[in-house]
């Protein structure tokens, strides 16, 4: 099959068109069913925040979109292509258009900050060293950490690691950015900074953003739309206002953070 990188580009879609579509996704790890027929559409250019209890399988959904996990059944479409039928080579073409920020930043600890950010560029482009250095500096500037290209990840704080992870994710100017719990474990000020960066990236790069979190404050601050993930499915999707006014008892309990309600300890499954 002919593979063209342009087939994986979001350019032919207009803002607001459905760009990623997840259909009836099922996934179990052993006997533990994590996704149970999950369906959701993502629109080009939006910030979609997926909320849900810790360990309900939100990260598993992101890993499916990236092709890091394959579903037991169901399908995912990106820019009209059925991702779930991709070969590894096709996935790699698609992944060049994607960026992902991991929960623990997942920086390569044997490389410097600069080498981390330039990793994809060195592998996939023929840019000169000076051009790559320029991009590295520009991206570091963008995440508010100029001049740290020569440091090793071990020398950085948690919040700095996340921001470097973000700089690496945006190094190739992706069409889609995925964030896995970007603010977990950070202090409130850093949470606000990361939230602001998320919105900035979305505006400056024009990229579609899917962000997974259980931090309601963040969700309401940055989301265009919020989706509630519960029990392996998306049980409600809406704008900030719609979610805030939701009468769904699960959504209400999650927003209020109350102990009483349909969400119990039994719903928290083990994430892989």
């Amino acid at each position: 099959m002919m593979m063209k990188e342009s087939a994986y580009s979001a350019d032919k879609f207009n803002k607001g068109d459905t760009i990623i579509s997840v259909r009836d996704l099922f996934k179990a790890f052993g006997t533990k069913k994590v996704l149970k027929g999950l369906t959701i559409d993502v629109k080009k250019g939006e910030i979609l925040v997926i909320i849900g209890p810790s360990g309900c399988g939100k990260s598993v959904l992101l890993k499916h979109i990236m092709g890091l996990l394959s579903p037991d059944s169901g399908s995912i479409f990106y820019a009209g292509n059925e991702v779930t039928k991709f070969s590894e080579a096709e996935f790699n073409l698609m992944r060049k258009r994607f960026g992902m920020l991991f929960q623990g930043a997942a920086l390569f600890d044997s490389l410097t900050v600069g080498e981390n950010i330039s990793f994809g560029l060195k592998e996939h482009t023929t840019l000169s060293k000076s051009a790559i250095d320029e991009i590295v500096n520009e991206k570091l500037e963008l995440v508010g950490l100029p001049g740290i290209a020569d440091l090793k990840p071990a020398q950085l704080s948690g919040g700095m690691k996340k921001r470097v992870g973000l700089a690496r994710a945006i190094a190739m100017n992706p069409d889609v950015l995925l964030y896995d719990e970007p603010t977990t474990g950070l202090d409130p000020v850093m949470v606000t900074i990361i939230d602001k960066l998320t919105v900035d990236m979305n505006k400056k790069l024009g990229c579609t953003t899917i962000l997974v979190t259980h931090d309601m404050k963040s969700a309401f601050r940055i989301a265009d739309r919020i989706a509630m993930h519960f029990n392996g499915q998306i049980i409600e999707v809406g704008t900030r206002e719609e979610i805030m006014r939701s009468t769904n008892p699960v959504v209400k309990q999650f927003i209020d953070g109350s102990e009483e309600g349909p969400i119990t300890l039994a719903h928290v499954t083990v994430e892989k």
Partner: protein
Amino acid sequence: MINFLLDEIKAMIKGLGEMTLMLASGFSFLIRGQVNLKDLVNQMSSIGVDSLFMVSITGLSTGMVLVVQMGNQMMKMGAESYVGGIVALALSRELAPNLTAIVVAGRIGSAMAAEIGTMAVTEQIDALHTLAVSPIKYLFVPRVLATALMLPILTIFSNAIGLAGGAFVSVMQVNISLVTFKESILSTLLVRDIIGGLAKTVIFGIIIGTVGCYKGFKTYGGAEGVGKSTTSSVVLAIMLILVANYFLSVLVVNVNETFFAQ
């Protein structure tokens, strides 16, 4: 009990199958020339530097002990002119290749499993995938190739140091002259004995690199998981080396007899 054993055997066969697939995939990168030379050289130098001391001590001790154990007996039988040859043959055919491989499995295979295992539990392997870079190409190929290239070199060291140790004990303790020891080696040892031993270590190197990387990639469950992978990589690599050694030795002997028999 029987079920447990069956499960273990199934898991082992599955593991061997997956390792074979990884090797095949690594080989396809290799023949397409997709090897990062800088990584390869880095790996080779760290394997050499990290294991040279251990390999030297092992070789030295083996050569010395061989002469301690048989020197006096051979002297009593008037067979001192065989000591050098026997030490040289034992070292070059079996002891140096096997012991070097086992030392490197413990020193390098475990380090690979720990490094890649840590990358796996901190999502760095996933991050490689998301950057559209194959972990097989980036991590596996340079490591396996480096071990396969370095193990023969380390074995040559082990051979030489072992012989030097044997000669030292012969002269100092058993009273065999250096000339007798040397003559014995020269009249017994053939180049093909050394080559046969070195050829085996290429395969051992592939085993050590593959098992170390495989156990690393399969790591889950945080620090405890990394510990488990590290230990199991050493156990599995040594076991596979010992099993492979039997078949490789049969092969080397047959090749020698078929092509070089006078």
